[in-house]
């Protein structure tokens, strides 16, 4: 599909705007079971994060935590589109991307609560969710760092001939840090099987990214600088995201090299638990709440003739899973002293002397 056709060393970049047109594919909607999977994913992510939010308010979540309420369509689309052995690299805003790879809710919730049954036994915390067995290769809390790291996993896949693809999610604000630039050029020249997904939710922490970025589309308008096609898509449309994800994954898997996707979306809440997000005009918030990816998608599925009872079932199951996860997480023990000095080194220990 044109939106992901690669023009290596492309001398001229079509504007993200025009690409945006192209990005909405003429292709048919995904088949029903795919759409149901997408809906189920979005619902599970939404319910999980709403519960996580309640638990902050009860002061059960220690440290910080970053919700992606409103951005679920992107994580869901890739979660459904990726091969089970593909690699995901996320940021501190990584709950959705972790769950979307099939990581159970309980260890994720328990990690937020700092319990021993947490995904990393409480040693990593909410910003570093990782589950290697699910291809969730980590959540990274220093802006930009994981783009080069994802290139490394892609390089390894290329070297091993495994056909795996690395998908790395990052924000609009991350496009202005040096690591972004180095990773994009590096991936392009080595034709690495990596998909760069910029979740453009318009804001860094409290600053509107457009006020500190030289171009309108922080990712898409940089694509030409790496010989890539600009690609700006609606990150709140699960079907469109799914098509774009499939195309980028196929291209990477077949040796076509990297794709840079800018998915427009919105962070319905604050940057982190500490943030009431007062800096955003109410009109803007309202506009985006109206573009919430989930209700719209539910309506679309009903319009497509899917039985509402099926969707009810999905919602009910997700709600039950969240309740169970909450109980199991709360019941988790606090990590004990034995964990403190474990696993600095591969031998399981932490000794710096002989």
């Amino acid at each position, binding site marked *: 599909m044109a939106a992901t056709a690669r023009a290596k060393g492309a001398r001229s970049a079509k504007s993200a705007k025009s690409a945006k047109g192209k990005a909405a594919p003429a292709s048919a909607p995904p088949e029903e079971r795919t759409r149901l999977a997408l809906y189920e994913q979005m619902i599970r992510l939404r319910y999980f994060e709403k519960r996580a939010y309640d638990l902050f308010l009860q002061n059960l979540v*220690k*440290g*910080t935590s970053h919700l992606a309420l409103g951005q679920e369509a992107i994580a869901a689309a890739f979660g459904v589109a990726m091969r089970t052995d593909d690699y995901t690299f996320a940021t501190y805003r990584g709950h959705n991307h972790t769950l979307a790879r099939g990581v159970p809710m309980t260890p994720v919730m328990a990690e937020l609560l*700092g*319990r021993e049954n*947490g995904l990393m*036994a*409480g*040693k*990593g*915390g*909410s*910003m*570093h969710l990782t589950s290697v067995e699910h291809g969730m290769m980590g959540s*990274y*809390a*220093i*802006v*930009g*760092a994981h783009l080069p790291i994802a290139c490394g996993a892609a390089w390894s896949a290329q070297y091993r001939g495994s056909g795996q693809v690395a998908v790395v999610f990052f924000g609009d*604000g*991350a496009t*202005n*840090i*040096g*690591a972004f630039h180095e990773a994009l050029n590096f991936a392009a020249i080595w034709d690495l099987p990596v998909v760069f997904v910029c979740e453009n939710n318009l804001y*860094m*922490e*409290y*600053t509107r*990214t457009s*006020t*500190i*970025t030289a171009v309108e589309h922080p990712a898409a308008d940089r694509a030409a600088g790496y010989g890539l096609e600009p690609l700006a898509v609606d990150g709140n449309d699960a079907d469109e995201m799914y098509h774009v994800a499939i195309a980028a994954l196929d291209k990477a898997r077949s040796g076509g090299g990297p794709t840079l996707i800018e998915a427009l979306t919105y962070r319905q809440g604050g940057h982190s638990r*500490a943030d009431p997000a007062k*800096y955003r005009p109410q009109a803007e918030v309202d506009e985006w709440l109206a573009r919430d990816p989930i209700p719209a998608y539910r309506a679309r599925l009903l319009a497509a003739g899917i039985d509402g009872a099926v969707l009810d079932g999905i919602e009910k199951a997700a709600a039950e899973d969240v309740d169970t996860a909450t109980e199991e997480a709360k019941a988790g023990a*606090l*990590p*004990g*002293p034995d*964990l*403190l*000095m474990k696993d*600095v080194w591969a031998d399981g220990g*932490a000794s*710096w002397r002989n």
Partner: protein
Amino acid sequence: MAELTYREAIARGIAQEMRRDDRVVFLGEDVAAAGGVFKGTVGLLEEFGPVRVRDTPISEQAILGAAMGAAMTGLRPIAEIMYSDFFGVCWDLVVNQIAKSRYMTNGQMTFPLVIRSGNGGGLRFGAQHSQSVENWAMAVPGLKVVVPSSPADVIGLMSAAIRDPDPVIFLEEKALYPAKGEVADGEITDTLGTAKVLRTGEHATLVALGNMVPRAMSAAGDLAAAGIDCTVIDVRSLVPLDTTTILREVARTGRLFTVEENPRLCGWGGELVSIASEEIFYDLDGAPIRITTPHIPLPAADTLEDLAIPSVDRIVATVQKAMNE
């Protein structure tokens, strides 16, 4: 006299200096309109305007490059690196450029700039947002390094750092942001390179920095109750280091204990012990002892983080054991 939080003291210290010198400018991520992610710079944009107080992109190399270039051409910039862990993405500017350029140019340039950064653990932020990096900076010639432990020191040392003609790494202890303290009215300024003796004792000297200072003080209280009478010194400034005050107290008490939040290896306490051992070896009545975070990345869970960072109890137990040997 007013009671202020450590957090509030930051904006007060910066504002005090921006009022008296319009060469002072301030830039960083979310520092202006939002008043800082730790709310340490609230009100500065309103008072000094968008030309002197500027929000930047997530571009730490650009932030520090801007500060360095401005400092060498007559301004006195203050740059914020939100968390000191992020020095990792702009370390070249700090250690290879800012720290060395005066010496390399045979003194043709000076760099009157301050780099403020939230430092240290205790907030359950995990390994990438909790480091104590004071020793990274101390190890590099050409940088002055300051870590205040009270609201009054925040203002006084901020003032001194901004007025100082050399680059100063000003580390704000995140765990202390909510800490309250009495602060005098009017202009407050202080002197870099001076340690503070917070309490004088006969038996041992505890030397602490930043977030460890209040813990050393309460440990000293408990130890006094147990019959061990300690001097407590707040280092405040790692470079320049006030060896005069510290060695005097260590020599007088005969015992040295350092209380360091950093992971053990190459911490400032090791440097201090080596200085004391070399210069006042025969005044030491027993082994100098370092109380530090073990040499591990910091875990996120509260129970684990509390086990890692030196606690009052660990300080008390360590000193008691050593003194009773």
